[in-house]
Structure formats: C-alpha cells, structure tokens
C-alpha cells in the first residue's frame, strides 16, 4: 500500500506511461499476428516503413493525422468541462455539409481567398449547430450528453444520405455525390505547394488543412489555459459546485463548450471536402469522429499530446493499409484491432502500468536519504 503515496515525476506521467501502454498494445497485437501465422517483426517493419518510409507514405499519414487532430481536439475540449462528446462523427459529417453547401453556391462566383474563410466558418457553424440540441438538452433538461450525441450521429448519417441522394446529387449522376467543385476552390495539396518551390513529392491527399489543424491546437491551448473562459470551463469540469460558487454560469458553459467542440469536429469537413474530395460525398468521415475519442484519451486531452496521438493513429491508418496490401492474410481489420488495443491499454487499462512505475520509484526513492520529514 505504501507505493500509492509516491508522486511520479511529470515525464513518467506524460511520456513513459503512454509509451509503455502503446508498447504493450503492439506486443499483444504481435501475438495475434503470430497466431494467424505471420511474422510480427516483419509486419511491424512493413507497417512502419509503409507509413514513414516514403514521401507518399508520409503524405498519407499526415493527411489522416489532420482529421484525427480535429476530432481529438473536439473530444478533449469538451472533456475539460467534464462533458463526453461522442458525437464527433456526426458533427464532422455536418461540417462537411456546411463546406459543400458554400462551395455549391459560390465556387464559381467567389475567389478562393473569400471562399476559404467562408468554408471554415460554415464547417464550424454546422458542427456547432449539430451539437446545439444535445447541448441544450444537457444544460436545461439533464439528458445525458453521451446518449444524445450518439443518437445524433445516426441522425446525421440519415440526414446526409437523404440530402446527398435526394437533393444534392445532380440528375443523371451514377453515384450519390454532388457535382465536382471548381478546381480553383480547392485547398492546395502539399505536393503542389512543394512542387511550386521545386521539391518533388508524390501526389497524396495531404493538403494545407494540416496548418488549420495546428492552428486549432494553438487555439484550444490558448482558450483552455490562458483565458478566463477556459479557466471557468476547467473549473466546471473539475468541480461543478466550485464553479457555481465562483459565479460561473454553468448552463452557458455547457452550451458554449459543446458548440466549440462541435465546431472543431466540423473542421474535418474542410480537410475532406475542400481539401481532398472536391465534392460532397457520403461517409467521408470514415470513423474519424469515433477515433477522436481514443486520440484524446491517448493524448491526455492536451493539444501537444493530441498531435502526437494523431500522428500515431495516422501511422496506423496508413501503415495498416500498406500492411494489408503486402500481407493479404493481415486484413485492414488488423489496424482496427491495434487501434482497439491501444484504446484498451491507454484508456481502460491506463492504470495498469502505473503501479509498476510507482513501485519502481518508491524503490529508487527509498535508497536515497529522505529529505523531508513532515507528517503524513
């Protein structure tokens, strides 16, 4: 029992424990790979080199990373207020609708410099609006946000199918999607930008939205830790009673927090619709909203952690695709398994390895002469 009273150094908390958890997840995944008769070391090597071994691999990895950053931030932001926004998937989907509608209306008439901020605002607005009803129900009626946001994911899916298939798909089209947008309205690809300055890179979906993702990280960091509103948000998240005592308007905090969270998820629409697809299609969110929960968990709800966790998930997505291509016995589902294991180890079992470190440090500290002699 004594080991419980050891305070671990910060670096153990933010680096050593998460890395150990990831390592354990890979270890178990390796056992599974072994069980289906493949060589785990070989598989790991393919996965890593597939994700990071070429310009093309890196481009895809960072493209996935961009989406994970948006959804991870969305979950983490709400989480600081003690709110579990599970609806990132639906909010991202609606964010794409916002972008699509702006582009359908204005892609030929407005210059890119106007379209870009307009699309960013539209994606955020639509994402925020999609969480407004669950947020209202949570704040004023006490309906649990987890339940309502999950339900709104299904509503989003149904709404998008209806809108895209019945309303937005042009007559005579062979698949459910809007018309292609004017190429001039697209956010430049990174390989185009690099090509313009003379650096060759394979064509990948990575576009300049990644800068938007990094800007969003800075925004979240500033808001949460450097504004009075972020202070109130965190106070509310840690202790609702203390927040009420401090004069925080709790209902307003719930509404504002969830709307910003929804807006962050909505930004996926900018990357996907304006950056990659250049038309509004179905199912472009591809589970990024849900993965955002794991990213936030893994990234300890801190923007820096979320960037790193997003990178890891990006590597898994791209490396996993490569892996299933190279070794057909390992399907893409394996990536999902590894992601699941990472969630398991860094989420549900996050305290599994903590006692090991605590025992280790208790042992190390006891060998040193005790400095302080205060009572317990």
């Amino acid at each position, binding site marked *: 029992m004594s080991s419980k009273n050891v305070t671990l150094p910060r670096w153990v908390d933010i680096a050593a424990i998460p890395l150990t958890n990831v390592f354990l997840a890979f270890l178990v995944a390796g056992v599974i790979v072994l069980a289906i008769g493949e060589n785990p070391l070989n598989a790991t090597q393919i996965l890593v080199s597939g994700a990071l071994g070429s310009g093309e691999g890196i481009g895809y990895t960072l493209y996935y990373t961009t989406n994970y950053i948006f959804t991870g931030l969305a979950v983490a932001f709400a989480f600081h207020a003690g709110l579990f926004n599970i609806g990132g998937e639906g909010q991202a989907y609606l964010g794409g609708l916002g972008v699509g509608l702006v582009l359908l209306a204005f892609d030929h008439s407005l210059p890119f410099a106007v379209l870009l901020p307009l699309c960013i605002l539209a994606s955020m607005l639509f994402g925020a609006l999609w969480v407004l009803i669950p947020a209202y129900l949570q704040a004023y009626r006490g309906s649990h946000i987890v339940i309502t946001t999950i339900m709104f994911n299904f509503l989003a899916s149904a709404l998008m199918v209806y809108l895209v298939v019945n309303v937005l798909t042009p007559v005579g089209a062979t698949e459910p999607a809007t018309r292609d947008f004017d190429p001039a309205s697209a956010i430049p690809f990174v390989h185009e930008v690099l090509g313009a300055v003379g650096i060759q890179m394979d064509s990948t979906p990575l576009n300049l939205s990644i800068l938007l993702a990094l800007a969003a990280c800075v925004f979240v960091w500033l808001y949460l830790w450097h504004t*009075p509103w972020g202070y109130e948000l965190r106070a509310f998240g840690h202790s609702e009673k203390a927040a009420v005592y401090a*004069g925080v308007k709790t209902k307003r905090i719930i509404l504002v927090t969830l709307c910003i969270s929804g807006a962050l998820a909505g930004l996926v629409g900018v990357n996907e619709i304006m950056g990659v697809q250049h038309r509004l299609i179905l199912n472009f969110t591809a589970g990024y909203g849900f993965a955002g929960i794991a990213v936030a968990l893994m990234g300890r709800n801190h923007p820096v952690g979320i960037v790193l966790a997003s990178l890891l998930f990006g590597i898994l997505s791209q490396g996993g695709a490569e892996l299933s291509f190279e070794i057909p016995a390992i399907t893409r589902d394996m990536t999902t398994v590894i992601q699941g294991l990472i969630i398991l180890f860094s989420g549900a079992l996050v305290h599994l390895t903590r006692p090991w470190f605590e025992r280790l440090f208790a042992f190390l500290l006891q060998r040193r002469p005790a400095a302080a002699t205060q009572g317990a």
Partner: protein
Amino acid sequence: MTFPASAADDRVATPGKAPLSPDVAAIELRHIEKRFGPTIANRDVSITIRRGAVTGIIGENGAGKSTLMSILYGFYQADAGEILVGGQPLDIRTTHDAIAAGIGMVHQHFVLVDTFTVLENIMLGREGGRLLRRGKAAARRELLRLEAEYGLGIDPDALVGDLPVGAQQRVEILKALYRGAEILILDEPTGVLTPQETDQLFRILATLRARGTTIILITHKLREVMAITDEVYVMRGGAIVAHRPTKETNSQELAELMVGRKVRLKLEKKPATPGAVQLEAKNLGLKDERGVACLSNINLTLRAGEIVGIAGVSGNGQSELLEVLAGIRAPSSGGFVVRDRNITPETACDPALMRELGVAHIPEDRHRLGLVTRFSAAESAMLGYQHEAGYRKGWLLDNRAIKASCDRLMEQFDVRPRIADLRSANFSGGNQQKLIIARELARHPKVLLVGQPTRGVDIGAIEFIHSQLIAHRDAGCAILVVSVELDEVMSLADRILVICGGRITGEVSAADADERELGLMMANARRGDDDAVPGMADTNMPDLKQSQATI
C-alpha cells in the same frame, strides 16, 4: 473503509486467544516507522496502551496520528517496528487481522447502510450462513446481551437512516463490540455531536472502561482529552513528543506541546461597535428539490462591525442559509436585502452579483466549493474573481500577475509551502483554508459569510484565522459565522443565533451565552425542559444523512 465481508471472518469471538492478566499492556507499539516516499509519517513511535484505560492521542493535522492508527488497524503496514497485542507480537496485515485480535475502530465518517436496520448493519459481513434467519436470530441474541451489558439505548430494528447522528455513532460502537472488540479506537468521535450527545458518548465510554474495554481516543479537542482520558500521548511531526497522565497536565500545556510553541487559547477582542445594517433577511424560506423545507421564516440582521454566530447541529439548515445568502441558491419565499439590493425568489441567483455587491463567502466545504483541488494554488487563489482586470492582459489571462497575486496572499496569510504552482489538493487543510480566507479577505468585503472557519485546521492556524476575522470586524466588515464548534461560535461572535430544523430558535448575546443552554436550543428544547433527551429530537433534523456525508 468498510468492514469487508469474508468467510474467514465468521468467528464472533476469537478462539485460541489466551486470557490476559491485567498488568499486561493491551497494545504496545515499539519503534514504529512509516514513510511515504520521502515523507516520514511516523518516526520511532513507541506507545503503550494500558488495559482498561482511556488513552488519548492528540496532535495537529499531519502529526501522524491517523497513520499510526491505520497501521494498528491494518490499513497500512509499518516499515519498521513491531506491534504487541496482549504481550504477543502480532503481524497485522489486514483489518481482518486487527478485528481478529480484538481491535475495533469507530471511524470519523460512519460506514453504515442507511436503508438497513441496526441489526442488519451489525450483521453485515458476518451473516452466518446462506440463509439469514438463523444468523439473524443469533445476532439479535448477542445484540440484546450487549445492550443489557452496556446500555447503549439502540433499538435493533430501527432503520439506521432514521437515527440521529449520536445514535448512529453508538451503532458503530455496537458493531465493533459485536465483533468482539476489546480495544476500541475512536477517530475524532465528537465532530458531529451536540454537547449533550458528546456527554452521552462520554458516559458510554466510561461504562465501557468500567467493563474493561480499552479505549483509544484520537482527537484534537483538548477539552475532551481533559474530560475523559486517563493518559495522553502528544504527537508532532510524526513522533511522540510527550506522554502525560491526564491528571498531571492541562489544556495549555497540551496545546503548546502539540503546536511546539506558546499559543493563546482565549481569544482577545474588544466589544463590537455595530454600525449600519448590511444584510437583512426577511421571512427567508428555502425548499429543496423534493419540496422539503430546509429553511423557514428566517429573520436576521447583520450590521457592519459585528460578528453574528449561527450555532446548530450540522444539517439543520445553516449550510443552506449560507448558500442562499451567497447567491448559490435562490430563496423559495421571502428574501433578503444586501447593501440595498433586494434578493427575492424572482431575482436570478448569482454568486458573481453577490461578489460585486461586496459579499465574500468562505464556504463550509472547502474541497468542493472553496477551491478546485486539481488547480494550482495560483488558479484556486483567483476562483470567483477570474474576470478581474488585474488578472488579464487583453483577452488573455496574465499568468505572471496571477502568480504574483497568489504569492502575495500566501505571504500575508502564511500559507505553506509558498509554492504557487503546487496543486491545491497537496496543501494541508489548514493551509487550504488560509488560502481561501486570504482570497476572500483581500477584496475587503463589506459582508463576509463564513462557514466552519477552522474545521480541520490546526490550533496554531485557528488562532491566526480568528484574529483575522476579528480584525476585519473591527475594520467595519459585517460577518456571519456558521460553525458546529460551539466554542468557536461563543468566542468569535458578538451575537449568537441558534438554528434548528431550519428555523431560528433563539438569540443570545455572546456575553450571556452558556453552553448548556445553547445546546438545548440547538436540540430545540426550551429552558426548563432539561429532561428532554437531546439528539433524540430526530424529527427536527432534516438532511442529517446528507450532512454526515459532507462532514
């Protein structure tokens, strides 16, 4: 901290325990050492608990007395040293070992199931078989025997949730006795009791002692130590600093031993010079979510330059009164006027507005209301004032200014350690309280609402907090103090209002207050009704269960 259920635990009496001669010490702790990381909680502690005596262990918070008892009761294991029970060395690894050795513990926070009867609570973990009927009958027999022997006055079929606090505590004692405890550890047992209930507890302890039970009393209340113990150990900084037969010591000496320097136990203050009315409640009423009245018809006036004390058994509406006056809850009927602003059920309740009006609030529950335990001290030191311009630089918070302001508060109020970046949770209770008081007093409020100003605070800090409150009174602040410590209300306040069942049941000037009379008013019995058993007036105590959870 419940008594865990276990099959290995089914014996009521412990077989194979040798009968003991009276001159063998009940418990002997030899050179106990306990270290938590770099912190030494117990340093070379050796104590001898005499059989059939009441031994007090006193010390400030963090002196190591709880750790020591946790070692004895099997929650922790000592790093070094040995425990002798009845002269035999014993390895106490779990609470089961402690119970088997005849050690029982009555916790500060009761561990009872409110919806169970007394009998069911006592059987819990010792059901005695798959079907309850036979075990229940046996338990009832044993309980009646204990009742006959010790006269605790507990009905085995009463629902625990319906019992007043004092009776619930006796259920805890009964539970320990039922488990065969010959050595009873009581951890701060009187914190939740009225003076009358305390007297009753002490009578029971005297009976237990007369029947040969060994009692260890952990407390920081010197009066109790003087009243009930036979000998006393004083702990400071993890070590035993003194051992005295109670007859040969006094409160002043014990206080100095605990703190390690001279302390003033008696508060010195000039007579109050009340000025203009700052706050006036008129027929104030409050109903909770279930529509039960917590407060009814409260009328009170608070003037500049005076301290009004609210005395009452906790759970009688004083917490709610503070919350209403602080703007956290809206009144359900009536209202109050604070500095010319009328607050009624129709006006939105808003703690921020109250702060603007010059009302500061030092809440009863500092862990949940007064600060955010996971915030740094600097962040907690701006709680409630987060929008003040002094903390801002444009749209952003000025972290340097926030820290500087916290450093200043810590310096003025001697908050230790002086580390603005340290998590609020890592400060001791007394230092947390000093930080909160520093924050609230720094704005020179016109009205100050204080709940339990010194709960869980060391003697040295109590002295300081009291003198600060008096200084602000003398500077013209109107102060309302709620405390369950009758001594504190009596020494701080200029006027005392007694609250019971959500009503003001009496008002006395502090100069004429006498403890016994106040105690009776707290139990809502009028003067002359001395036969009434206080504490049994359970119908007058709403939310008793709830209040225990927060104590």
